[in-house]
Protein backbone atom coordinates (compact mmCIF):
# COMPACT_ATOMS: atom_id res chain seq x y z
CA UNK A 1 0.00 0.00 0.00
CA UNK A 2 1.27 3.45 -0.82
CA UNK A 3 1.26 6.52 1.38
CA UNK A 4 -1.30 9.16 0.49
CA UNK A 5 0.21 11.54 3.03
CA UNK A 6 3.90 11.50 3.93
CA UNK A 7 5.71 14.20 5.88
CA UNK A 8 9.37 14.42 6.72
CA UNK A 9 10.49 16.43 9.77
CA UNK A 10 7.66 18.85 9.05
CA UNK A 11 8.19 21.85 11.33
CA UNK A 12 6.43 25.18 11.77
CA UNK A 13 7.50 28.16 13.82
CA UNK A 14 5.32 31.19 14.41
CA UNK A 15 7.98 33.71 15.44
CA UNK A 16 10.05 31.90 18.06
CA UNK A 17 7.21 29.55 18.95
CA UNK A 18 7.44 26.02 17.56
CA UNK A 19 3.89 24.81 16.81
CA UNK A 20 4.71 21.66 14.86
CA UNK A 21 7.99 19.95 15.67
CA UNK A 22 9.69 17.47 13.33
CA UNK A 23 6.52 15.67 12.29
CA UNK A 24 6.95 12.36 10.45
CA UNK A 25 3.42 11.39 9.54
CA UNK A 26 2.37 8.66 7.13
CA UNK A 27 -1.18 7.90 6.14
CA UNK A 28 -1.71 4.83 3.98
CA UNK A 29 -4.05 4.65 1.03
CA UNK A 30 -7.54 3.64 2.16
CA UNK A 31 -6.75 4.26 5.83
CA UNK A 32 -8.65 6.33 8.34
CA UNK A 33 -6.20 8.28 10.47
CA UNK A 34 -7.32 10.09 13.62
CA UNK A 35 -5.08 12.93 14.71
CA UNK A 36 -5.76 13.65 18.33
CA UNK A 37 -4.64 16.61 20.37
CA UNK A 38 -5.69 19.34 22.69
CA UNK A 39 -6.40 22.86 21.47
CA UNK A 40 -3.11 24.35 20.39
CA UNK A 41 -1.33 21.00 20.02
CA UNK A 42 -0.63 21.74 16.36
CA UNK A 43 -3.43 19.79 14.63
CA UNK A 44 -4.81 22.66 12.56
CA UNK A 45 -1.36 23.96 11.64
CA UNK A 46 -0.38 20.47 10.45
CA UNK A 47 -3.51 20.24 8.32
CA UNK A 48 -2.98 23.75 6.94
CA UNK A 49 0.58 22.80 5.94
CA UNK A 50 -0.65 19.61 4.26
CA UNK A 51 -3.02 21.70 2.17
CA UNK A 52 -0.37 24.27 1.28
CA UNK A 53 -2.19 26.98 3.26
CA UNK A 54 0.75 27.45 5.64
CA UNK A 55 4.38 27.08 4.65
CA UNK A 56 6.61 24.78 6.68
CA UNK A 57 9.62 26.38 8.34
CA UNK A 58 11.59 23.16 7.82
CA UNK A 59 10.85 19.76 6.42
CA UNK A 60 8.50 18.73 3.68
CA UNK A 61 5.18 17.06 3.01
CA UNK A 62 3.76 15.09 0.12
CA UNK A 63 0.13 14.45 -0.70
CA UNK A 64 -0.85 11.90 -3.36
CA UNK A 65 2.81 11.86 -4.41
CA UNK A 66 3.14 15.63 -4.90
CA UNK A 67 5.01 18.17 -2.81
CA UNK A 68 2.37 20.24 -1.02
CA UNK A 69 4.00 23.55 -1.90
CA UNK A 70 3.52 22.73 -5.61
CA UNK A 71 0.19 20.89 -5.80
CA UNK A 72 -1.14 20.88 -9.38
CA UNK A 73 -4.80 21.97 -9.57
CA UNK A 74 -6.00 18.55 -10.77
CA UNK A 75 -4.43 16.90 -7.69
CA UNK A 76 -5.93 19.59 -5.48
CA UNK A 77 -9.29 18.66 -6.99
CA UNK A 78 -8.91 15.13 -5.63
CA UNK A 79 -8.56 16.42 -2.05
CA UNK A 80 -11.55 17.51 0.00
CA UNK A 81 -11.07 19.66 3.06
CA UNK A 82 -13.61 20.27 5.78
CA UNK A 83 -12.48 23.28 7.78
CA UNK A 84 -13.19 23.61 11.48
CA UNK A 85 -16.69 24.96 12.13
CA UNK A 86 -17.90 24.06 8.61
CA UNK A 87 -17.81 27.56 7.12
CA UNK A 88 -20.42 28.07 4.38
CA UNK A 89 -22.08 31.25 3.17
CA UNK A 90 -24.97 31.81 5.55
CA UNK A 91 -27.06 33.81 3.09
CA UNK A 92 -27.17 30.94 0.58
CA UNK A 93 -29.81 28.25 0.66
CA UNK A 94 -28.67 24.62 0.76
CA UNK A 95 -29.54 24.33 -2.94
CA UNK A 96 -27.57 27.48 -3.83
CA UNK A 97 -24.57 26.24 -1.86
CA UNK A 98 -24.67 22.98 -3.82
CA UNK A 99 -24.79 24.80 -7.18
CA UNK A 100 -21.98 27.11 -6.03
CA UNK A 101 -19.62 24.29 -5.01
CA UNK A 102 -20.59 22.14 -7.97
CA UNK A 103 -19.39 24.85 -10.35
CA UNK A 104 -15.83 24.23 -9.08
CA UNK A 105 -16.04 20.53 -9.96
CA UNK A 106 -17.15 20.25 -13.58
CA UNK A 107 -15.57 16.79 -14.01
CA UNK A 108 -16.46 14.88 -10.88
CA UNK A 109 -19.73 15.31 -9.10
CA UNK A 110 -21.60 12.50 -7.42
CA UNK A 111 -25.08 13.98 -7.06
CA UNK A 112 -26.42 10.60 -5.98
CA UNK A 113 -24.20 10.46 -2.92
CA UNK A 114 -25.03 14.05 -2.08
CA UNK A 115 -28.78 13.41 -2.38
CA UNK A 116 -28.49 10.33 -0.14
CA UNK A 117 -26.96 12.35 2.68
CA UNK A 118 -29.41 15.25 2.26
CA UNK A 119 -32.34 12.86 2.24
CA UNK A 120 -31.14 10.77 5.15
CA UNK A 121 -30.80 13.82 7.38
CA UNK A 122 -33.87 15.56 5.95
CA UNK A 123 -32.02 18.68 4.89
CA UNK A 124 -34.36 20.96 2.93
CA UNK A 125 -32.81 22.48 -0.21
CA UNK A 126 -34.69 25.75 0.19
CA UNK A 127 -33.50 26.49 3.70
CA UNK A 128 -30.90 29.21 4.30
CA UNK A 129 -27.58 27.88 5.62
CA UNK A 130 -27.65 30.30 8.54
CA UNK A 131 -31.01 28.88 9.68
CA UNK A 132 -29.59 25.35 9.95
CA UNK A 133 -28.50 23.91 13.26
CA UNK A 134 -24.77 23.31 13.77
CA UNK A 135 -25.35 19.61 13.21
CA UNK A 136 -27.28 20.16 9.96
CA UNK A 137 -24.61 22.53 8.69
CA UNK A 138 -21.96 19.90 9.43
CA UNK A 139 -23.90 17.34 7.35
CA UNK A 140 -24.26 19.77 4.43
CA UNK A 141 -20.55 20.58 4.60
CA UNK A 142 -19.60 16.88 4.63
CA UNK A 143 -22.00 16.08 1.78
CA UNK A 144 -20.49 18.92 -0.29
CA UNK A 145 -16.97 17.78 0.50
CA UNK A 146 -17.55 14.22 -0.68
CA UNK A 147 -19.73 15.00 -3.71
CA UNK A 148 -16.67 15.51 -5.99
CA UNK A 149 -15.64 11.93 -5.04
CA UNK A 150 -12.26 12.91 -3.57
CA UNK A 151 -9.45 10.39 -3.05
CA UNK A 152 -8.46 12.08 0.17
CA UNK A 153 -10.73 13.69 2.72
CA UNK A 154 -9.22 15.91 5.41
CA UNK A 155 -11.46 17.02 8.26
CA UNK A 156 -10.35 19.50 10.89
CA UNK A 157 -12.10 18.67 14.17
CA UNK A 158 -15.44 18.08 12.40
CA UNK A 159 -17.49 17.45 15.54
CA UNK A 160 -16.35 20.50 17.50
CA UNK A 161 -19.34 22.53 18.69
CA UNK A 162 -21.83 19.71 18.08
CA UNK A 163 -23.94 18.32 20.92
CA UNK A 164 -23.83 14.59 21.72
CA UNK A 165 -26.71 13.64 19.41
CA UNK A 166 -25.46 15.73 16.49
CA UNK A 167 -21.97 14.39 17.01
CA UNK A 168 -23.16 10.81 16.83
CA UNK A 169 -25.19 11.56 13.70
CA UNK A 170 -22.18 13.16 12.08
CA UNK A 171 -20.20 10.01 12.80
CA UNK A 172 -22.96 7.98 11.12
CA UNK A 173 -22.47 10.18 8.04
CA UNK A 174 -18.74 9.66 8.25
CA UNK A 175 -19.16 5.87 8.49
CA UNK A 176 -21.16 6.08 5.29
CA UNK A 177 -18.19 7.85 3.68
CA UNK A 178 -15.67 5.38 5.12
CA UNK A 179 -17.66 2.46 3.71
CA UNK A 180 -16.99 3.67 0.20
CA UNK A 181 -13.73 1.87 -0.22
CA UNK A 182 -10.48 3.28 -1.47
CA UNK A 183 -10.89 6.70 0.04
CA UNK A 184 -8.29 7.90 2.53
CA UNK A 185 -9.38 9.99 5.48
CA UNK A 186 -7.41 12.14 7.89
CA UNK A 187 -9.40 13.76 10.63
CA UNK A 188 -8.37 15.66 13.70
CA UNK A 189 -10.30 15.52 16.92
CA UNK A 190 -10.03 16.24 20.59
CA UNK A 191 -12.40 13.39 21.46
CA UNK A 192 -10.67 10.07 21.97
CA UNK A 193 -13.82 7.93 21.81
CA UNK A 194 -14.71 9.38 18.37
CA UNK A 195 -11.23 8.54 17.15
CA UNK A 196 -11.61 5.02 18.49
CA UNK A 197 -14.82 4.46 16.54
CA UNK A 198 -13.61 5.91 13.27
CA UNK A 199 -9.86 5.50 12.95
CA UNK A 200 -7.68 2.51 12.02
CA UNK A 201 -4.70 4.43 13.21
CA UNK A 202 -4.25 7.08 15.86
CA UNK A 203 -1.70 9.85 16.17
CA UNK A 204 -1.43 12.00 19.28
CA UNK A 205 0.11 15.44 19.05
CA UNK A 206 1.38 16.97 22.26
CA UNK A 207 2.84 20.47 21.98
CA UNK A 208 3.58 19.98 18.29
CA UNK A 209 5.29 16.59 18.75
CA UNK A 210 3.73 13.35 17.50
CA UNK A 211 3.94 11.29 20.70
CA UNK A 212 1.84 8.33 19.58
CA UNK A 213 1.45 6.85 16.11
CA UNK A 214 0.03 3.32 16.08
CA UNK A 215 -3.07 1.23 15.27
CA UNK A 216 -6.01 2.41 17.40
CA UNK A 217 -6.53 -1.05 18.97
CA UNK A 218 -2.86 -1.24 19.87
CA UNK A 219 -3.06 2.13 21.62
CA UNK A 220 -6.01 1.03 23.70
CA UNK A 221 -4.45 -2.31 24.58
CA UNK A 222 -1.07 -0.98 25.61
CA UNK A 223 -1.68 2.43 27.18
CA UNK A 224 -0.74 2.41 30.87
CA UNK A 225 -0.62 4.88 33.68
CA UNK A 226 2.54 4.66 35.77
CA UNK A 227 2.54 6.34 39.16
CA UNK A 228 5.86 7.10 40.87
CA UNK A 229 5.89 8.01 44.56
CA UNK A 230 8.70 10.25 45.89
CA UNK A 231 9.73 11.50 49.33
CA UNK A 232 9.64 15.12 48.18
CA UNK A 233 9.01 17.02 44.97
CA UNK A 234 9.44 14.57 42.07
CA UNK A 235 12.41 15.16 39.74
CA UNK A 236 11.77 16.28 36.16
CA UNK A 237 10.99 13.25 33.99
CA UNK A 238 13.72 12.83 31.34
CA UNK A 239 11.23 11.38 28.84
CA UNK A 240 11.03 7.93 27.26
CA UNK A 241 9.74 6.10 24.21
CA UNK A 242 5.91 6.11 24.09
CA UNK A 243 5.47 8.87 26.68
CA UNK A 244 2.18 10.69 26.09
CA UNK A 245 2.03 12.78 29.20
CA UNK A 246 3.87 13.43 32.47
CA UNK A 247 2.15 15.23 35.32
CA UNK A 248 3.23 16.09 38.85
CA UNK A 249 0.69 15.77 41.63
CA UNK A 250 2.29 16.64 44.99
CA UNK A 251 4.88 13.95 45.62
CA UNK A 252 3.60 11.78 42.80
CA UNK A 253 4.78 11.75 39.23
CA UNK A 254 2.11 10.31 36.90
CA UNK A 255 3.08 9.12 33.46
CA UNK A 256 0.92 8.04 30.54
CA UNK A 257 2.88 5.59 28.40
CA UNK A 258 2.09 3.51 25.33
CA UNK A 259 3.90 0.16 25.00
CA UNK A 260 5.29 0.16 28.51
CA UNK A 261 8.25 -2.21 28.79
CA UNK A 262 11.76 -2.80 30.06
CA UNK A 263 13.32 0.33 28.54
CA UNK A 264 10.78 2.57 30.28
CA UNK A 265 11.14 0.59 33.48
CA UNK A 266 14.89 1.28 33.54
CA UNK A 267 14.38 5.01 33.16
CA UNK A 268 11.80 5.00 35.95
CA UNK A 269 14.08 3.07 38.30
CA UNK A 270 16.97 5.42 37.55
CA UNK A 271 14.92 8.18 39.25
CA UNK A 272 14.87 6.04 42.46
CA UNK A 273 11.25 6.61 43.46
CA UNK A 274 10.06 5.28 46.84
CA UNK A 275 7.66 3.07 44.90
CA UNK A 276 6.02 2.83 41.50
CA UNK A 277 2.89 1.19 40.11
CA UNK A 278 1.56 0.36 36.67
CA UNK A 279 -2.20 0.80 36.23
CA UNK A 280 -4.46 -0.24 33.37
CA UNK A 281 -6.87 2.41 32.27
CA UNK A 282 -9.82 2.68 29.97
CA UNK A 283 -10.04 5.09 27.10
CA UNK A 284 -11.98 7.73 29.02
CA UNK A 285 -9.44 7.61 31.84
CA UNK A 286 -6.64 7.79 29.30
CA UNK A 287 -8.32 10.80 27.76
CA UNK A 288 -8.69 12.58 31.07
CA UNK A 289 -5.09 11.77 31.99
CA UNK A 290 -3.98 13.06 28.67
CA UNK A 291 -6.01 16.25 28.59
CA UNK A 292 -5.31 17.26 32.12
CA UNK A 293 -1.61 18.02 31.55
CA UNK A 294 0.59 19.48 34.25
CA UNK A 295 -1.85 21.45 36.30
CA UNK A 296 -1.50 22.07 40.01
CA UNK A 297 -3.99 20.06 42.06
CA UNK A 298 -7.36 21.73 42.60
CA UNK A 299 -7.07 21.39 46.35
CA UNK A 300 -3.50 21.71 47.55
CA UNK A 301 -2.72 19.06 50.13
CA UNK A 302 -0.34 19.55 53.03
CA UNK A 303 2.44 17.58 51.36
CA UNK A 304 2.14 18.99 47.89
CA UNK A 305 4.86 21.61 48.40
CA UNK A 306 5.21 24.92 46.60
CA UNK A 307 3.50 24.80 43.21
CA UNK A 308 5.98 27.19 41.55
CA UNK A 309 7.41 24.74 39.04
CA UNK A 310 3.95 23.59 38.05
CA UNK A 311 2.61 27.11 37.60
CA UNK A 312 5.46 27.88 35.26
CA UNK A 313 4.60 24.90 33.07
CA UNK A 314 0.97 26.01 32.94
CA UNK A 315 2.08 29.40 31.63
CA UNK A 316 4.02 27.50 29.03
CA UNK A 317 0.89 25.61 28.08
CA UNK A 318 -1.12 28.77 27.64
CA UNK A 319 1.43 30.29 25.33
CA UNK A 320 1.10 27.27 23.09
CA UNK A 321 -2.54 27.90 22.42
CA UNK A 322 -3.37 29.07 18.97
Amino acid sequence: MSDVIATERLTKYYGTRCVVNGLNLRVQSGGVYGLLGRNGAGKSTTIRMLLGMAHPTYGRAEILGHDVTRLPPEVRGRIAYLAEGHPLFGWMTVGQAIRFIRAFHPQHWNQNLLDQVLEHFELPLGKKIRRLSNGQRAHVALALAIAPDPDLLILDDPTIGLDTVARREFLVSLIHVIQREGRTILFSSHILSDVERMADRIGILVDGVLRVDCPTDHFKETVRKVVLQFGGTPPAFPGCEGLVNAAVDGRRLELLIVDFGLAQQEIIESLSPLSWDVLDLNLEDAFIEYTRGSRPPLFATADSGPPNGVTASREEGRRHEE
Partner: protein
Amino acid sequence: MEFRLEASSRLPIYRQIVQQVRQGAARGQLKPGEQLPSVRELSRILVVNPNTIARAYVELEREGILNNQPGRGVFVAEPRAQLAKEVRRRRLIELVDKFLTEAVHLGFSEAEVQRLVAARSEQFQWEPSRLETRS
Protein backbone atom coordinates in the same frame (compact mmCIF):
# COMPACT_ATOMS: atom_id res chain seq x y z
CA MET B 1 -28.65 -10.23 19.61
CA GLU B 2 -28.08 -6.65 20.71
CA PHE B 3 -24.48 -5.49 20.63
CA ARG B 4 -23.37 -2.94 23.18
CA LEU B 5 -20.17 -0.95 23.19
CA GLU B 6 -18.91 0.37 26.49
CA ALA B 7 -16.99 3.61 26.20
CA SER B 8 -15.56 2.93 29.63
CA SER B 9 -14.28 -0.52 28.69
CA ARG B 10 -10.57 -1.19 28.68
CA LEU B 11 -11.06 -3.53 25.72
CA PRO B 12 -10.66 -2.28 22.16
CA ILE B 13 -13.95 -2.26 20.22
CA TYR B 14 -13.15 -5.39 18.16
CA ARG B 15 -12.45 -7.29 21.40
CA GLN B 16 -15.78 -6.19 22.88
CA ILE B 17 -17.56 -7.54 19.82
CA VAL B 18 -15.63 -10.82 19.93
CA GLN B 19 -16.47 -11.22 23.59
CA GLN B 20 -20.18 -10.50 23.12
CA VAL B 21 -20.55 -13.00 20.29
CA ARG B 22 -18.58 -15.59 22.21
CA GLN B 23 -20.75 -15.05 25.27
CA GLY B 24 -23.96 -14.99 23.23
CA ALA B 25 -23.07 -18.36 21.70
CA ALA B 26 -22.10 -19.84 25.06
CA ARG B 27 -25.36 -18.72 26.66
CA GLY B 28 -27.52 -19.91 23.81
CA GLN B 29 -28.68 -16.40 22.82
CA LEU B 30 -27.03 -17.09 19.47
CA LYS B 31 -28.11 -20.40 17.97
CA PRO B 32 -26.03 -22.38 15.47
CA GLY B 33 -27.05 -21.37 11.95
CA GLU B 34 -28.34 -17.96 13.05
CA GLN B 35 -27.34 -15.11 10.76
CA LEU B 36 -25.42 -12.12 12.08
CA PRO B 37 -25.51 -8.61 10.58
CA SER B 38 -23.02 -8.13 7.77
CA VAL B 39 -19.84 -6.13 8.37
CA ARG B 40 -21.39 -3.07 6.72
CA GLU B 41 -24.65 -3.37 8.64
CA LEU B 42 -22.99 -3.77 12.01
CA SER B 43 -20.62 -0.92 11.17
CA ARG B 44 -23.65 1.32 10.67
CA ILE B 45 -25.53 0.00 13.71
CA LEU B 46 -22.60 0.48 16.08
CA VAL B 47 -21.18 3.55 14.27
CA VAL B 48 -17.78 1.93 14.04
CA ASN B 49 -15.21 1.67 11.26
CA PRO B 50 -16.07 -1.42 9.14
CA ASN B 51 -12.46 -2.64 9.40
CA THR B 52 -12.93 -3.01 13.15
CA ILE B 53 -16.03 -5.17 12.66
CA ALA B 54 -14.26 -7.21 9.98
CA ARG B 55 -11.37 -7.81 12.35
CA ALA B 56 -13.75 -9.12 15.03
CA TYR B 57 -15.51 -11.42 12.53
CA VAL B 58 -12.22 -12.79 11.20
CA GLU B 59 -11.12 -13.57 14.74
CA LEU B 60 -14.45 -15.28 15.54
CA GLU B 61 -14.21 -17.28 12.35
CA ARG B 62 -10.70 -18.36 13.25
CA GLU B 63 -12.00 -19.54 16.60
CA GLY B 64 -14.69 -21.54 14.84
CA ILE B 65 -17.55 -19.57 16.39
CA LEU B 66 -18.69 -17.89 13.17
CA ASN B 67 -18.91 -19.16 9.67
CA ASN B 68 -18.52 -16.69 6.81
CA GLN B 69 -20.23 -17.84 3.64
CA PRO B 70 -19.25 -15.39 0.91
CA GLY B 71 -22.29 -14.05 -0.88
CA ARG B 72 -24.69 -15.43 1.74
CA GLY B 73 -23.61 -13.90 5.01
CA VAL B 74 -22.12 -14.52 8.40
CA PHE B 75 -23.60 -17.34 10.48
CA VAL B 76 -23.13 -18.85 13.92
CA ALA B 77 -21.17 -22.07 13.39
CA GLU B 78 -22.11 -25.51 14.65
CA PRO B 79 -20.06 -26.10 17.77
CA ARG B 80 -17.11 -28.29 17.00
CA ALA B 81 -14.11 -29.42 18.88
CA GLN B 82 -11.16 -27.88 17.11
CA LEU B 83 -8.49 -28.30 19.69
CA ALA B 84 -7.09 -31.48 21.06
CA LYS B 85 -8.44 -32.49 24.43
CA GLU B 86 -5.25 -31.76 26.32
CA VAL B 87 -4.89 -28.27 24.83
CA ARG B 88 -8.43 -27.37 25.77
CA ARG B 89 -7.99 -28.75 29.26
CA ARG B 90 -4.84 -26.70 29.77
CA ARG B 91 -6.50 -23.54 28.54
CA LEU B 92 -9.39 -24.02 30.95
CA ILE B 93 -7.09 -24.74 33.89
CA GLU B 94 -5.20 -21.54 33.16
CA LEU B 95 -8.46 -19.57 33.29
CA VAL B 96 -9.67 -21.34 36.44
CA ASP B 97 -6.39 -20.60 38.21
CA LYS B 98 -6.61 -16.95 37.24
CA PHE B 99 -10.19 -16.79 38.51
CA LEU B 100 -9.35 -18.58 41.79
CA THR B 101 -6.36 -16.30 42.41
CA GLU B 102 -8.63 -13.30 42.03
CA ALA B 103 -11.25 -14.89 44.33
CA VAL B 104 -8.68 -15.57 47.07
CA HIS B 105 -7.45 -11.98 46.92
CA LEU B 106 -10.99 -10.66 47.05
CA GLY B 107 -11.39 -12.56 50.33
CA PHE B 108 -14.00 -15.20 49.37
CA SER B 109 -14.13 -18.57 51.07
CA GLU B 110 -13.90 -21.75 49.04
CA ALA B 111 -17.54 -22.63 49.77
CA GLU B 112 -18.72 -19.18 48.66
CA VAL B 113 -16.85 -19.47 45.37
CA GLN B 114 -18.32 -22.92 44.71
CA ARG B 115 -21.85 -21.67 45.38
CA LEU B 116 -21.29 -18.68 43.10
CA VAL B 117 -19.94 -20.84 40.26
CA ALA B 118 -22.91 -23.20 40.55
CA ALA B 119 -25.38 -20.29 40.47
CA ARG B 120 -23.77 -18.57 37.48
CA SER B 121 -23.43 -21.87 35.68
CA GLU B 122 -27.23 -22.09 35.41
CA GLN B 123 -27.17 -19.06 33.10
CA PHE B 124 -25.34 -21.01 30.45
CA GLN B 125 -26.35 -23.62 27.97
CA TRP B 126 -24.21 -26.70 28.43
CA GLU B 127 -23.64 -29.54 26.08
CA PRO B 128 -22.47 -33.05 26.82
CA SER B 129 -18.72 -33.10 27.06
CA ARG B 130 -16.92 -33.25 23.77
CA LEU B 131 -13.68 -34.11 25.45
CA GLU B 132 -14.33 -37.83 25.80
CA THR B 133 -15.20 -38.44 22.17
CA ARG B 134 -11.99 -37.14 20.66
CA SER B 135 -8.22 -37.56 20.69
